[in-house]
């Protein structure tokens, strides 16, 4: 599907202009996920076999002066890899000195169906986490979430990444944060 259609108020998205960096060490899984991304109509898929190779690629893209070289739109990374884990890669991205890399949307994929992994992924600064088994519906949901519901980024002394609070909960206990909301500096990017 390479065309964008608007039906009423709902737009049918096209990923034909997207470039996605897939970071996956296992060739079989590379083939599976790239096949799924092609089915989604992703325009360009770049594959790195580990976090370290991905860092090199992102640095080359970020430092290139050529207008032909564009940064990727989304990074999809396996969580556990021998040559640089998804956790380390995500933290490296969030600590990058160049904004286009620093704010890059990151989706982690793991077969760990544990709360600990989801929390670790979130705390590393990932936007979304996808737990196997894979399905078209699950992948669509995660990509749609990154497109439709991008969370503001938060910088605190011990974290940089998308706001880790997805829902506004009524907190019935003592307030743990002691900072006056008016002291929070808000940076709005200009289009």
């Amino acid at each position, binding site marked *: 599907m390479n065309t964008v259609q608007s039906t009423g108020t709902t737009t049918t*998205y096209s990923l034909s202009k*997207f470039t996605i960096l897939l970071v996956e060490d296992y060739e079989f899984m590379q083939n599976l996920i790239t096949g799924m991304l092609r089915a989604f109509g992703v325009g360009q898929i770049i594959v790195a076999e580990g976090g370290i190779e991905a860092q090199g690629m992102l640095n080359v893209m970020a430092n290139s002066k050529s207008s032909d070289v564009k940064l990727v739109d989304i990074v999809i990374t396996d969580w556990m890899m021998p040559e640089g884990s998804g956790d380390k890669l995500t933290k490296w991205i969030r600590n990058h000195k160049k904004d286009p890399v620093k704010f890059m949307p990151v989706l982690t994929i793991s077969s760990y169906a544990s709360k600990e992994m989801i929390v670790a992924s979130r705390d590393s600064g990932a936007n979304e986490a996808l737990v196997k088994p894979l399905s078209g519906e699950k992948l669509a949901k995660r990509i749609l979430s990154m497109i439709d519901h991008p969370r503001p980024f938060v910088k605190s002394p011990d974290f940089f990444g998308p706001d880790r609070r997805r829902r506004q909960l009524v907190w019935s206990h003592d307030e743990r*944060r002691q900072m006056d909301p008016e002291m929070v500096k808000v940076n709005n990017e200009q289009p």
Partner: protein
Amino acid sequence: MSNPKDYTQEEDVEIYNRVNRLKVKAGGEEDGGPGKFDQSVIDNANTVITKMASLYPKEIENVLKALDKEWDQLKATDDEAEKKRLVERLSNTANQIKDLAGTFSYTLMEYFGDSLCTYILETSLDKEEQFIIVQAHVDVMGVAFREGLKDDDGGAVAEELKATVQKAIEKYN
């Protein structure tokens, strides 16, 4: 519950509201409502999974063979550097088994792949008793493959295999 953090210093916390480039690139308007994917796109992605699932038996057989080979090499070597390399390889192969089996809902094989991978990462295999636990994993994964067992939540054989590994861990760990 951890102690409250003291965010009292000015500019300790900053919020960055970014332009939504993804939405615009996908064909939406930045301040427009939620969009969707065409159902045919999602169906096509599921077809890819179904096709790849048909390759699972051959692929898992190959990965189990690689695991056997690495395990035999590890048992045979006295060289510390080689041993370290093979432990890493073994851990990676166990992770591949977990990934592969988990992707196609072979939950019993995923369970053993996860258990072996976690065990190697936690112990680094520096004691002889720990080799018995790895051997138990290798053996039960071979049985699970040969018997074509898929789910870990049903069947006496699956339960027996899980108990075999658990007993080995309790006895030798």
